[in-house]
């Protein structure tokens, strides 16, 4: 069932049109330059459907989320995933997996940043608040900068 469900899963892709996006895109006016949402667990950065050149960002969630990498659904790897799921403890779910050091459960602290770049072009982007020891730093989420730098005018 997991193989079938996750085969074409695009839940974690930034540009996926989920129900929250579709509803907000419809109910919010097309003149809004940047439509920002949050608290829906899956972060997003994409152009709006109702109006080209307008953008939608969702900062996702700061609580832990479960993600099963597709590579872990193979016959060789999945028994370990199943064992951890059946164990039922957060400690087991958080332990690093082979090739996936973040484990099955991890935290993605994301914020939305909208600011002018060095040429004065206003851009939106998602930033990871990534742990560095006891401190944190901001990292741009790849592919989240909108409008993309290459298409800037």
């Amino acid at each position: 069932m997991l193989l079938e469900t996750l085969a074409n899963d695009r839940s974690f892709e930034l540009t996926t049109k989920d129900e929250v996006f579709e509803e907000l895109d419809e109910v919010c006016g097309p003149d809004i330059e940047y439509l920002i949402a949050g608290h829906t667990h899956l972060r997003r950065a994409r152009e709006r459907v109702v109006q080209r050149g307008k953008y939608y960002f969702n900062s996702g969630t700061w609580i832990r989320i479960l993600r099963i990498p597709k590579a872990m659904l193979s016959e060789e790897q999945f028994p370990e995933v199943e064992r951890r799921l059946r164990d039922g403890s957060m400690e087991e779910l958080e332990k690093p997996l082979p090739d996936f050091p973040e484990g099955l459960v991890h935290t993605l602290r994301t914020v939305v940043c909208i600011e002018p770049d060095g040429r004065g072009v206003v851009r939106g982007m998602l930033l990871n608040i990534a742990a560095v020891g006891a401190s944190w730093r901001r990292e741009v989420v790849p592919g989240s900068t909108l409008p993309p730098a290459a298409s800037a005018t």
Partner: protein
Amino acid sequence: MSSELHDIKTVSLRIVRDGPTHNHLLSPLTAYLAMVGPYEAVSIRMPYEHRRLMRDLSALRYRAGTSRGPDPSLVSISERRIIADDIGGIFAAVPGLTSEMAPESACDGSLTHLCLVFSAAELSLLPFELATSPRGFPGEGSPLSIQSNAPVVMTRSIPGALGKNCRWDREPRVLFIAAQPPGFERVPIKAHLLALTKALGPWIGSSPRLPGSRTRTRRALLDKYLTVLPDASLQKIEEACRRTPFLTCTSWHTAHCWMRGASRSSPWHCTVPAATRSW
């Protein structure tokens, strides 16, 4: 984008209300208990009637020039400012929060994570992210979420579910009960069935025939998880519960009920046909 190091300071504001999570409307008459860290809990009230907030939220969606939705002019710029100030006032009413959010209590360059925890579902309607920074908060008088004195990230959550034992690997069983006694309007059975079928998609698959089970149609698979009583009576419900492979009613994970009917003497009782009693 700079990548300088920062500390993160987490401040949790817990707002709780007596009673169940759902089925409450916002009202200035409702008292909530607000708690921050080790500080004394305080009683607060929300400055909104439910209907007024819904109107304001609709207008704040800026649907100017579209055929649907209210005109944003229903909420003027000054009114938007009032909404933001009202929300900021909720924060200001919690002395412990002011202490925790004070700029001087944060290290230079730190990021403050303001974690809002609600036990009352109706509070999720309030646009806390719109709040004007109240006195004692960083960037006083500016929008709290985007003031640049000391960055604040607001998140929302519900009280933790520690101690709940939720089994993830049980197959669902849904009992859909519907009844439309004579004299009452029809119930939207088809729409609810479609929604339930969609929710059961992970178990029944999205294609009519599933690989490896050519003889079993999707309908047959659906029957395994969903039992429908479109013309329910108490007797039929009882028989359906008895027919399940399990002996107790708790074998149903969900009973999805849709019924029309109410007696004037007991308006909260749904009635089903051929029933000797109501429930």
